[in-house]
């Protein structure tokens, strides 16, 4: 058992409160300066279904999904088979469960250490309203060395709106659980983090957007993006902004465009099916040069797919989903903390370049909560400046060297124009002429191609003749794979792309210089990134694809294994 | 302002509105006909607009030292929905003949004459009666000119408005 990480799974059904248990445990751990990640897994029921809180306590902030669990606390074993793929046990695993429960075959087969604890009985004995999840919290807390008082305080905050006796019951159960001496020793990862934050990727994205100046959001709920919008609703109110719940995604994207046309930085969030609906109007934003940011939290596709699980299969539609030649921005945050930076950067870029930015987050980083150091911010916020009016009519779509023309907004004096999805001339008047179409297409392409995006297009680390390339949330499993490889004496370069369009071909080529093998890693079935890169780049090295669809998170071991196969080591 | 002046001022306000609406309408119709390449009719409407301009200038001159009541477009009490000399947008057809355009203009002149005549006959202000009468006469003479011009024009073919091509679909 490594002290680098400790993985705990808590499962239960029927409203057992498993997720709350996991959240409170992680929060208390964070208070002591510990880092960790909380993921959730659950059945299709809205209430009373099977739930699993999947915790990974770690020394470092590289948050991949656990593959093997050190502790599995099962309040019950109802439909545990649902989680079998994700919750793997070994002979070192500690299983804590009710004395009378029959263990699932898969659990028995792993040969774990089994601790029978009469959770229900103990909870009932502690208080009339006693619940097993709070008892489990006390139990686990004590195994981790967390003070019961801290757990009680946190649970009090969480249950603030519940009846008094309910809150007292929680406290009683926590304390009882903490006092229960288990015949089990856990080695916990070291603490020592300072100035830590506790947030989900979706919350982080919302913060990044608001900090970058978003003051209008149009929202249509969709799993797993609704949390972004819900969190922003509260924030916007305090900032004098507005959130409109739209009747559908078509309304959402168009409301966003309307607000942006009004000069108010605007934003919407959705997932694959919603993004598909929005594509026509994202093209309108591109053609009319109206800045919008569309935050897409990817989930299992295609079509309705697997709404509650993560995947990286919307790359194709993000890059190519707009009809016509409609160059635009596509970015992907690399992890939960990076959601703050990348979303802020996307908003800022969209404003500067007067185009649409599609940000590809996913369910894994979106809906997982992590303890992180204070996230990096995007400082690159561009203030709006309207240069002095020149002679003659205001030309909204003036052909400039940078390709960026001044964007007037309603209220600006004597700069009236009509924005249009129709192709237009410099003034904005619809035009079907080749010269206008060519020059405006050039304008919209060049303003992106000629822009200096700086160093943040990606994150690179390591060295070696083999490179691992990925985008967005794959960066953590890829980094872990690289660490595993280093342990095997194989050095791998890791490149995580944050900016996917426009692709920084020159910079990427330079970064790959000297590599002989390249493996493109992604969480989708068809190798979308692989094929995209093959189309854009002139690779000097052999390029291989490691494409694995969801719903199970990418496995660093498998990635490392693939590298070994490819390099023949 | 005296009562008489007020009545005259009101009449002038109506007249200015009538003439300026007529002029602007003819200009608009000229533009749309030109855009649809019915140049004959477009040029005719331009000439009509110019005629009306003269008349408008006259009225404005007569009224220049008076303060006219400012009425919104819908506050004018016209015999029909629009002011009398204003050609209805809906009377147009892109293939209308010059003859048809002239008939339209003739109807406008007659409506204007009829309007001014009615004011001249019913107003109890001498000045208004006099001037309205003058305007009515002028409209009458315009109408007569148009009637003359019409006689010079050939009759329309029965299928004038037919076109072989299908309509286009620009968007």
């Amino acid at each position, binding site marked *: 058992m490594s002290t680098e990480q400790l993985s705990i799974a808590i499962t239960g059904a029927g409203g057992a409160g498993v997720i709350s248990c996991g959240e409170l445990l992680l929060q208390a751990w964070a208070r002591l300066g510990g880092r960790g990640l909380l993921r959730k897994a659950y059945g299709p029921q809205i209430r009373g279904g099977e739930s699993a809180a999947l915790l990974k306590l770690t020394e470092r902030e590289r948050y991949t999904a656990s593959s093997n669990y050190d502790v599995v606390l099962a309040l019950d074993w109802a439909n545990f088979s649902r989680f079998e793929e994700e919750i793997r046990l070994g002979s070192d695993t500690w299983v804590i469960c009710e004395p009378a429960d029959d263990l699932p075959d898969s659990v028995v087969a792993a040969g774990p250490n089994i601790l029978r604890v009469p959770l229900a009985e103990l909870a009932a004995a502690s208080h009339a309203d006693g619940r097993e999840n709070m008892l489990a919290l006390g139990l686990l807390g004590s195994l981790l060395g967390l003070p019961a008082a801290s757990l009680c305080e946190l649970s009090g905050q969480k249950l603030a709106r519940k009846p008094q006796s309910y809150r007292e019951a929680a406290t009683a159960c926590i304390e009882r659980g903490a006092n229960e001496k288990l015949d089990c020793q856990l080695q916990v990862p070291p603490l020592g983090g300072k100035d830590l934050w506790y947030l989900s990727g979706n919350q982080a994205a919302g913060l990044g957007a608001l900090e970058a100046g978003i003051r209008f959001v149009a929202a249509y709920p969709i799993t797993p993006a609704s949390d972004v919008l819900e969190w922003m609703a509260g924030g916007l109110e*305090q900032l*004098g902004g507005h959130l409109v719940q739209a009747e559908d995604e078509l309304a959402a994207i168009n409301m966003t465009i309307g607000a942006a046309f009004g000069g*108010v930085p605007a934003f919407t969030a959705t997932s694959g099916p919603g993004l598909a609906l929005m594509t026509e109007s994202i093209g309108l934003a591109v053609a009319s040069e109206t800045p919008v940011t569309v935050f897409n939290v990817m989930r299992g596709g295609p079509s309705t797919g697997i709404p509650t699980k993560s995947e990286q299969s919307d790359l194709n539609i993000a890059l190519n989903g707009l009809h016509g030649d409609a160059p635009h921005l596509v970015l992907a945050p690399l992890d939960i903390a990076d959601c703050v930076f990348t979303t802020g950067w996307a908003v800022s870029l969209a404003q500067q370049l007067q185009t649409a930015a599609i940000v590809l987050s996913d369910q894994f980083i979106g809906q997982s909560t992590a303890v992180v150091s204070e996230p990096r911010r995007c400082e690159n916020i561009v203030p709006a400046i309207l240069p002095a009016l020149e002679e003659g009519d205001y030309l909204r779509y003036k052909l400039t060297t940078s390709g960026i023309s001044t964007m007037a907004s309603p*209220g600006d004096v004597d700069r009236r124009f009509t924005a249009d*999805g129709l192709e237009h001339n410099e003034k904005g008047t619809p035009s079907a002429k080749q010269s206008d179409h060519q020059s405006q297409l050039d304008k919209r392409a060049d303003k992106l191609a000629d822009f200096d995006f700086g160093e943040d297009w990606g994150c690179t680390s390591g060295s070696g003749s083999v490179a691992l390339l990925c985008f967005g949330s794959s960066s953590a499993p890829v980094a872990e794979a690289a660490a595993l490889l280093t342990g095997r004496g194989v050095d791998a370069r890791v490149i995580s792309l944050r900016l996917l369009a426009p692709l920084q071909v020159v910079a990427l080529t330079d970064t790959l210089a000297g590599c002989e093998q390249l493996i493109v890693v992604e969480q989708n079935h068809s190798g979308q990134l692989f094929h995209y890169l093959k189309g854009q780049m002139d690779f000097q090295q052999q390029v291989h694809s490691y494409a694995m669809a969801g719903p199970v998170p990418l496995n660093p071991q498998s990635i490392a294994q693939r590298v070994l196969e490819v390099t023949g080591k | 302002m005296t009562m008489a002046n007020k009545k005259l001022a009101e009449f002038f306000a109506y007249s200015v509105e009538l003439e300026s609406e007529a002029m602007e309408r003819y200009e608009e119709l000229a533009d749309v006909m030109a855009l649809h390449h019915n140049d004959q009719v477009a040029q005719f409407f331009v000439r009509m607009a110019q005629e009306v301009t003269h008349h408008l200038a006259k009225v404005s001159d007569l009224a220049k030292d008076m303060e006219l009541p400012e009425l*919104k477009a819908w506050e004018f009490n016209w015999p029909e929905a629009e002011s009398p000399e204003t050609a209805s947008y*809906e009377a147009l057809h892109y293939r209308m003949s010059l003859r048809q355009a002239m008939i339209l203009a003739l109807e406008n002149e007659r409506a204007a004459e009829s309007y001014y005549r009615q004011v001249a006959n019913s107003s109890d202000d001498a000045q208004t009666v006099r001037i309205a009468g003058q305007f009515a006469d002028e409209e009458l003479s315009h109408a007569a000119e148009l009637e003359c011009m019409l006689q010079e024009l050939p009759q329309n073919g029965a299928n004038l408005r037919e076109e072989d091509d299908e309509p286009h679909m620009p968007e």
Partner: protein
Amino acid sequence: MTDVIKLKAKDYKSGIKPIWCPGCGHFSVFNAITKAMAALAISKDDTVMVSGIGCSSRLPAYVDSYGFHGVHGRGLAIAQGLKVARPDLTVLAMGGDGDGFSIGGNHFIHACRRNVNITYIAMDNEVYGMTKGQASPTTAMDWDHSKLTPHGPGVRPFKPAALALASGAPWIARAYSGNPNQMAKLIAEAIEFEGFSFLHVMSQCITFCPEQTDWKAIVHEREEPALVDADEAAKLFLHEDGFQIGLLYSEQRATWPPTAVGAVTEGAVAQLSASFRV
């Protein structure tokens, strides 16, 4: 904001010549809009015309104000987003019967329900003019002039006023392109009305529905004041001939959103990030 000197209706025209067919009813609507703007002495710089796609959606470019020519059916969404973000602006949304009641149908009923303070002018010629004459949701069941529906649509047309009422629109009026002055008055009232004002304009299509010149004889003005009772309005809208013009229904309803914009809490951004600190 521009100095509000007294502008005339023609001063509100951008100078771009409309491409509508000679005989099109939309010229009247354009005329009426400019008259209403002049009468209200509206500031050009603070007014936005928003449209979807179709012949009537070409209108924004012809007005000397800001404009947004959006995609088919989505003008109302753009207009509401704009107005919510910029409540200081005067926002008019406009489009045709296909744009508004077919592809835009969902946005129409929700706009009525939401009651954002904008004006919506639907120019209804009971046909898709721009795409060469297909039946629309307001086309008569037996209109068989479209190749797409050679036996007529065979489906009952919508009654837009009834739809609007059922969806919650507080101000419903109808105008006719043959009477631009009355239309101008209704547009001015619509703009001044606090809430979602729906103006249903019967605006003939000379090219695909030349029979609509008959409307002149059928149209009749409403003599009575506007109804204020929804039940009575429902009866009217379900049973009328669809050609009564004037202000038909008007009630006061709270507009959305209720909170004033710009009420920023001191240090709000810092507070938001602080909420994540352990």
